[in-house]
């Protein structure tokens, strides 16, 4: 759910502590709660946590409406989203050319609808038992239609592939095939992603 974090597990539940939130998996449900930050005043802290919780839930639902499988949301409170637990394997563990191509198609759909995921890694994508590819963790997502934002998104995904998969080059090509299929502006974004890589600004994890 988050790329860097601490995990605690017990018989009943699994807890993952991220920079911004605590994710608890219990009874087939995922509880994602944005945690208080002591460094900022209450007025800002509460506002930001509420706004982001709401926006994340909205984008998760919006993505699903446009055809990108995401967890079903059951409940939203001020700082917490309760959602469906997706059973399956992390894309990081099972990715192959077909899955990478499917991921490309789905990212194309997100981008066509101006959704920027902002944390596209193979740890935030789950391949379900029925081979459906799900996107989880829209915690950093936002709505924007600039080539730059889309380019950063694609670039971050390539970085995550390169960091963890030996067949990086082939997986990247498969992704591109899928991405071009669903998104007509793909060429422009892919060109920008290369440029962003040359800037060397985004560090590999």
């Amino acid at each position, binding site marked *: 759910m988050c*790329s*860097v*974090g601490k995990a605690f597990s017990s018989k009943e539940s699994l807890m993952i502590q*991220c*920079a*911004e939130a605590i994710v608890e998996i219990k009874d087939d449900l995922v509880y994602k709660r944005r945690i208080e*930050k*002591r*460094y*900022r*005043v209450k*007025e*800002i*802290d509460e*506002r*930001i946590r509420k706004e982001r919780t709401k926006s994340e839930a909205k984008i998760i639902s919006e993505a699903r409406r446009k055809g990108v499988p995401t967890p079903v949301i059951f409940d939203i409170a001020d700082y917490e989203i309760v959602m469906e637990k997706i059973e399956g394997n992390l894309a990081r563990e099972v990715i192959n050319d077909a899955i990478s191509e499917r991921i490309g198609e789905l990212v194309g759909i997100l981008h066509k609808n101006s959704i920027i995921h*902002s944390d596209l890694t193979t740890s935030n994508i789950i391949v379900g038992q029925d081979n459906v590819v799900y996107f989880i963790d829209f915690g*950093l997502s*936002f709505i924007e239609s600039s080539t730059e934002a889309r380019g*950063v998104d694609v670039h971050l995904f390539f970085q995550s592939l390169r960091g963890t998969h030996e067949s990086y080059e082939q997986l990247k090509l498969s992704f591109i095939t899928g991405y071009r299929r669903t998104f007509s502006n793909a060429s422009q974004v892919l060109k920008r992603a290369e440029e962003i890589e040359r*800037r*060397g*600004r*985004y*560090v*590999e*994890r």
Partner: protein
Amino acid sequence: MTIILGLEGTAWNLSAALVSEERVIYEAESTYKPEYGGIHPREAAQHHASELKNVVARALRGADKEKEGFSLDIIDAIAFSQGPGMGPCLRTVATAARALSISLKIPLIGVNHCVAHIEIGRWQCGTKDPVVLYVSGANSQVLAYRADRYRILGETLDIGIGNALDKFARYLRLSHPGGPKIEELASKGTKYVYMPYVVKGMDLSFSGLTTAAKDAFDLHLEEKADICYSFQETAFAMLTEVTERAMSHCGKDDMLLAGGVGANRRLQQMLQTMCHDREARFYVPEAKYLKDNGAMIAYLGLLMLKSGDTTPIEKSEVNPNYRPDEVEVTWRDVE
């Protein structure tokens, strides 16, 4: 012992310092103070041109007073800020540096001003591999070292935090520099006034915040102190948030604050709290090494000289938009 003379004059502070491997030997400075408004680049450059000789002489005399017998021929190399900064100011200081290098027949070292801020902080605080928050007038960046470069993980999309504070301060008719005066006013504020909080991934934007603060002031419904308080709380929370995200992203547990705005006690306090809560270590150098200073230029010059990284005259042209990630770091051990 190697001794470097460092010249800094990217904006309003002109400074010369002598630094050796062990310590900052002596530093002298002269600050341009605008009569009204902000820094006028040409006037700042004229100030630097007329003060340079004095400042360098004072640095040398000051070093002499310590009875180590310094004179110009003891200097092993001249380091200067090659950028980023205001063009006219950079050119003035670079000209002086070239002249000294040629007449003394010693190497010239063009230094990136941002990287110098980072290196003096690492040296003074003894932190090896921190995530750096660099906040000054024109710059607001979060950086971390990887593979021979200081990578910029996040930065402002419009104006630097110092500029944002100064702009609002000028609107309140406070004299330059406005940051400390806003800090003073903010310490008396108690009521939070709504301000836009703009964080995109690890990037920030401050221009909307400045406009919102001006608008709040124009309406005369809120106390000046409350607006300053809200401005600071919002801007610094944004900076702290992206710094924390960068630390989490890179898995680093040291954090270093650099740049003039780093002197703000409320910003220090917020970063300290954030680091404490994630069991990380927070480092901030003394105030004289947060603001623009010649010692940091001399120190980075020393590191570069030791790794054989000097600047031939024909490559010593200044670069007002010199980014820290353009510099290949030749002096750091593999970590």
